[in-house]
């Protein structure tokens, strides 16, 4: 208020001023009103950079944080998912406009953690190692850099499961076990589903290929490159994944629609997709906006052959070059964002952000039925999956390798390219870039 009053007091009589001066005075006054109080306060400003939904969770936490830390101001800067990670790359590369806390999505974690731009949270100043047993093992182990130090703390994860339409299954004379016994039985059930109901088994065969490749990865190894740096793309699990994908496409069991595209959503709404392999958060997405009309018709099961994996997740990290005087505050904030049992539960309730924190997973909320899934106690199933997910090491070229393999799968499916040749070509491209 003080600044606003002084701005008006110093303003000369409008009658005596030329229009240009009046405009300048007005703009100056407005700026003082806008920024004046903030400048006067001179409190340290703690900045969290996040992307949609994670930003909501962070903002909720910051409301309470500001009351507990009146000496600090805190803000959340939110950008769209890709823009956020691009902006963080730029900020880390130039060390300019670095936030104090960065939210990172799992698929970007490999790239960020393998550089040296993130603070070593295992260092004595932070002592993150003492908290490692509080999280589901795979989530915390994924956040290590090449030297084995923790560079981020997990917040939420997406235990994978098989969503299936119980009504379509019944119509086709199938049961859950027919889908989950093995990947081969899943495909056979798909053929029966298609024949009797007309529904596709899955949106796109890529999803099937991805999970077979991931599930077959030896624990502690990389999905595409092993711990000795050898590319694994011509290995048996890739061959199996490609062969099954080819079989699915040849039988016309996949709808060839990409997740989140209009056609995919429309097919889910109209009951033309019988199964969906995704993280547990998909239940909330379907219930809230993708296909709310299908409530009660879906169920979840563990993925075929008891494959356990996570679809997405969020981590928080501190940039190594951010303001040193605020790093401990940032670390405190990260601890609240990742280790506050109640807040993790709140985020799960409101945003379907499944907590990586083990303490949150013992709440009675996990024993409650999920209405969208016909009252199934699905959260127990996801909790079980979360604790069994093996650690898969991320490689710097993970994203590139993923796309190269998808492109070669397209070549197999569209042009009949021989699978061994496709995998060899993919491997050659990945090797060509592996050390860049």
């Amino acid at each position, binding site marked *: 208020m003080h600044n606003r009053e002084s701005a008006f007091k110093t303003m000369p009589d409008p009658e005596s001023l030329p229009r240009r001066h009046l405009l300048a005075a007005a703009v100056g006054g407005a700026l003082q009103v806008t920024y004046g109080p903030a400048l006067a306060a001179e409190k340290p400003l703690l900045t969290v950079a996040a992307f949609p939904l994670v930003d909501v969770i962070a903002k909720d936490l910051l409301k309470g944080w500001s009351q507990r830390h009146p000496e600090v101001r805190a803000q959340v800067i939110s950008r769209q998912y*890709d823009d956020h990670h*691009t902006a*963080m*790359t*730029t900020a*880390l*590369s*130039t*060390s300019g406009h670095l936030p104090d806390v960065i939210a990172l999505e799992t698929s970007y974690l490999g*790239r*960020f953690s*393998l*550089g*040296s*731009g*993130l603070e070593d949270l295992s260092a004595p100043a932070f002592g993150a190692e003492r908290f490692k047993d509080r999280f589901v093992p795979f989530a915390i182990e994924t956040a290590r850099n090449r030297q084995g130090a923790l560079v981020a703390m997990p917040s939420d994860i997406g235990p994978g499961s098989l969503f299936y339409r119980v009504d379509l299954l019944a119509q086709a004379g199938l049961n859950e076990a027919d889908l989950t016994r093995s990947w081969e039985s899943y495909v056979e059930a798909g053929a029966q589903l298609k024949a009797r109901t007309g529904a596709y088994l899955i949106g*796109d065969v890529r999803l099937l290929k991805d999970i077979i490749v991931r599930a077959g990865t030896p624990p502690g190894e990389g999905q595409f490159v092993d711990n000795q740096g050898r590319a694994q793309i011509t290995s048996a699990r890739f061959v199996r994944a490609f062969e099954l994908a080819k079989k699915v496409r040849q039988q016309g069991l996949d709808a*060839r*629609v*990409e997740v989140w*595209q*209009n*056609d995919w959503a*429309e*097919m889910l709404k109209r009951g033309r997709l019988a199964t969906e392999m995704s993280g547990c958060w998909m239940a909330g997405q379907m219930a809230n906006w993708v296909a709310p009309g299908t409530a009660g018709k879906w169920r979840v099961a563990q993925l075929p052959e008891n494959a356990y994996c996570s679809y997405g997740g969020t981590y928080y990290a501190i940039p*190594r*070059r951010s303001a040193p005087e605020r790093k401990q505050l940032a670390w405190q904030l990260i601890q609240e964002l990742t280790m506050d049992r109640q807040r993790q539960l709140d985020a799960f309730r409101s945003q379907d952000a499944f907590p990586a924190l083990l303490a949150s997973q013992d709440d009675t909320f996990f024993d409650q039925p999920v209405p969208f899934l016909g009252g199934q106690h699905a959260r127990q199933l996801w909790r079980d999956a979360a604790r069994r997910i093996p650690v898969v090491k991320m490689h*710097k*070229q993970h*994203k*590139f390798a993923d*796309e190269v393999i998808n*492109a070669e799968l*397209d*070549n197999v499916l*569209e042009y009949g390219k021989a699978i061994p040749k496709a995998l060899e*070509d993919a491997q*050659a*491209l990945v090797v*060509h*870039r592996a050390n*860049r």
Partner: protein
Amino acid sequence: MSFRIPSRWAPYLLVSPFLILFAVFGLFPLLFSAWLAFQSWEPTSGIEAMQFVGFDNFVFALTDGWFWKSLRNTLWLAVATGVPQHLVAIPLAVFLHRSFGRWRGLFSGAYFLPYITSTVAIAMLFGSLFSTDYGLVNQALHAMFGTDNINWMRSPDAIKPAVAIIVFWRYVGFNLVLYLAALQTIPNDLYQAAKLDGAGAWQQFLRITLPGIKPMILFGVTLSIIGGLQLFEEPFILTNGKGGADQAAMTVAMYLYRLAFDFSDFGGASALAWIMFGIIALLTWLTNKAFADKQVQR
């Protein structure tokens, strides 16, 4: 107290806003990119992580399968969008010029509209039109020719034509305006004289119109070559920044961006940018040479 700028400094002062902006947003990125092309850099590790690697990035780019794939895509799209743009825009401009008199502005404005429409809006609109099961394009094709639904976005063979249609639709109006402007510079006397000599419409077009707009054709073709080889927005937004199935719609400009921001290889991306600069410069020079030779012969 009065402050006077010495007259010899005045010109520099007056052009300084442009020079400063150009230095910051034009020259610096250009020089930095040239510097980066010889460095290996993991950007998330900070600026000090750069290491000089000589010509490694150029060798990598030239031996990278995805560079050649994206170059083939780019050339395909440049030809498939560039050639029809001019083949349609020239006769259309002649038709509008002759037939609509003072109303031609209205029609050329209508054709120009896609050029100034937001790319995001265009991509969203065409994303819906090209939808496999629910899109108007497939519905229309099915109604007219009884064809099966084409998976425009997920089929490598279909995605290129889909992008080409959008680019053609967007830029044909721009070329139309160029040619309309050129047509207005041709004196009407030439046509009247040709008519008196018994020249038909086709002969007039061939002997008067085409030579008259030749400088504009050179300009338009040069712009199309540069624009075609730098094609980015339409395929980027339409394919969610990935390039579609088998990266069939990933242009070099897209790959260059992805190499830097998706795959964290700023050195390789910079080298690629300079290789692309060389290719564009060469093609532009060849175009100029081709047109210049003909003018000399004439």
